[in-house]
């Protein structure tokens, strides 16, 4: 180190590393001390997370093992897994689970397909592209309540716009709210309307990172627009598609606002025969209409486990695919 440097830095770079058998303990302490501020900076998030996510989460688990009423939240009696066995034997749970599944499929699948198509169209050089993008995000910005009320009007039996149109073309009126499939279709339409633009924007962002040369190469290779979409766009979007599927699935399992307000009366029964009662509605009904908080907590945990299961399967599929890719 004859080259006297004006800062310590070059010297540090050249210096041989300190011998390994040196005192390790003080060193670790320095590291912790140095990191203390880091922990302080991330602390607010974890405090809020603990208070509003982790604690309720664990408390719900605890409650689900008790028979608790809204009136005596602290004085429940221990019932073990009773609430869960009851749930699994309850026809209401299975009805709600089935409804959640069908509405989930009816909304998520067309929603993501349409989002892909829309994103593909918006990816072309269009006049007023920014305007169209803003318009697409509008439904996402509307409140569920307002949107659902408007849709309830559209799907109304006697004065609804859709039934009037059906009548004009000579088809019979449909009691949208009364039927199982029709009500679920209508609710799926609301969900789809709200979330398609959001997903389309996510897809669009991912599409814009696909290099243009890939499309040019495909064009020269003789691929039509459709084949380019199939062989260039979709494969490049695979991780993004997986992400939106997971997010939409979580949303679908937790579906609550739309079916609650669709009937127009804000009841948790999900129609006269529960034809569109989702798990979210069932949970609310158990807890706040029937006052069985323990039961509601068990349902909440069941929903959580369903989500974990679906996301887990998704992650597994994604990992297997990427392993095959290697």
């Amino acid at each position: 180190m004859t080259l006297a440097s004006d800062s310590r830095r070059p010297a540090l770079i050249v210096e041989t590393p300190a011998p390994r058998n040196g005192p390790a303990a003080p060193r670790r302490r320095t590291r912790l001390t140095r990191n203390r501020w880091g922990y302080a900076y991330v602390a607010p998030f974890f405090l809020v997370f603990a208070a509003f996510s982790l604690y309720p989460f664990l408390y719900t688990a605890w409650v689900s093992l008790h028979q608790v009423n809204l009136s005596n939240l602290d004085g429940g009696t221990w019932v073990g897994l009773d609430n869960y066995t009851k749930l699994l034997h309850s026809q209401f749970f299975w009805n709600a689970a089935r409804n959640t599944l069908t509405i989930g499929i009816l909304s998520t699948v067309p929603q993501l397909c349409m989002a892909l198509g829309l994103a593909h169209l918006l990816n072309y050089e269009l006049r007023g592209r920014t305007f169209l993008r803003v318009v697409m995000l509008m439904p996402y910005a509307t409140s569920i309540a307002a949107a659902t009320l408007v849709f309830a009007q559209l799907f109304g039996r006697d004065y609804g716009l859709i039934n009037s149109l059906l009548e004009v073309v000579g088809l019979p009126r449909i009691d949208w709210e009364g039927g199982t499939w029709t009500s679920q279709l209508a609710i799926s339409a609301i969900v789809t309307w709200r979330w398609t633009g959001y997903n389309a924007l996510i897809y669009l962002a991912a599409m814009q990172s696909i290099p243009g040369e890939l499309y040019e190469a495909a064009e020269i290779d003789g691929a039509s627009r459709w084949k380019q979409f199939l062989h260039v766009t979709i494969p490049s979007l695979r991780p993004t598609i997986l992400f939106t599927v997971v997010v939409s699935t979580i949303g679908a399992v937790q579906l609550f606002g739309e079916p609650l307000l669709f009937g127009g009366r804000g009841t948790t029964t999900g129609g006269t025969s529960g034809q569109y009662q989702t798990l979210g509605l069932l949970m609310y009904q158990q807890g706040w209409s029937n006052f069985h908080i323990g039961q509601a907590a068990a349902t909440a945990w069941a929903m959580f486990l369903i989500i974990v299961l679906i996301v887990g399967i998704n992650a597994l599929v994604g990992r297997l695919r990427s392993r095959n890719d290697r």
Partner: protein
Amino acid sequence: MATVTFDQATRIYPRAERPAVDALDLAIADGEFLVLVGPSGCGKSTSLRMLAGLEEVDAGAVRIGERDVTDAPPKDRDIAMVFQNYALYPHMTVGENMGFALKLAGVRKSEIATRVTEAAKILDLSDYLERRPKALSGGQRQRVAMGRAIVRSPQVFLMDEPLSNLDAKLRVQTRTQIAALVQRLGTTTVYVTHDQVEAMTMGDRVAVLKDGVLQQCDTPGALYDRPANVFVAGFIGSPAMNLVTGDAVDGGVRVGSAVLPVPRDQLDRAAAGNGRVTVGFRPESMHQVGPGEGIPVLVTVVEQLGSDAYLYTKLAGEGADDVLHPSDVVVRTDPRTAATAGQQLWLGVREGALHVFDASTSQRVD
């Protein structure tokens, strides 16, 4: 196999001041290897993309063989293109990448497999057919891009700076491989590069473009020996030709304090514009002469390359120190030269090696 013809082909980008490609006229023979070369923004890539069908032709026509393809989509042109960044499909294996065009064309699977295997063998990619592009080195990716082009046996190969993403050593190596491959296949090839060395070594003919206008199209030797204008003279050759503009005087052109002899009638025609003449002489056509005989110069930098040495010199008595333009005249000399920076030398130009240009039009005068 086919000829390629650009017939007054023009491309004007919307809201551009001048055409990106201005009335390009080029006739490329069947099986010829033509290189489009020029500085960035000269329109060489645009010309290639017009031929590929990736760029519109605003005026004029482009023909492949006898067929007018001016408005035909890329897939109907029977061409294959190698992109600068290769544009390999990242989710397909090497084999799938190479066979994709055939698959789209509905060729039988067994036929695709044979053709891909064959191309892979030529390009030394047989062991990598199951790999994905990201698991390959830059040179291997480049070869996959070549393979994707040759499995189709197209009428024309288009290559858009296919070597510029390789490191210097690999570039030289791949350069000869591509030239040999194309020669063996005998396919008409249009090759775009900004590197004049690549252009000179690979092309049967080289077309030099500048600002969208074709400057000259000729064999590498002819471009070097008889550049049509000052731009081509300065662009082709490394180090570049020495170009000096001076007044026409009795018996020649004044350069510094010396007069370079130019034949009478040639001088008269060159000076017809504004009385000034640009003369060019290549570094290798200069030699040292005795003190007081030729052009007096001051050596500023000596570059030793082992096989040669280059002396970067300034005309003696010309202006003050200018770091950005340290030299007026470059001289190739014996590698063991004794010249050192700061030394004064006298230079002569070998007879018949002087290029003469009209300074007002920049055009060559013979």
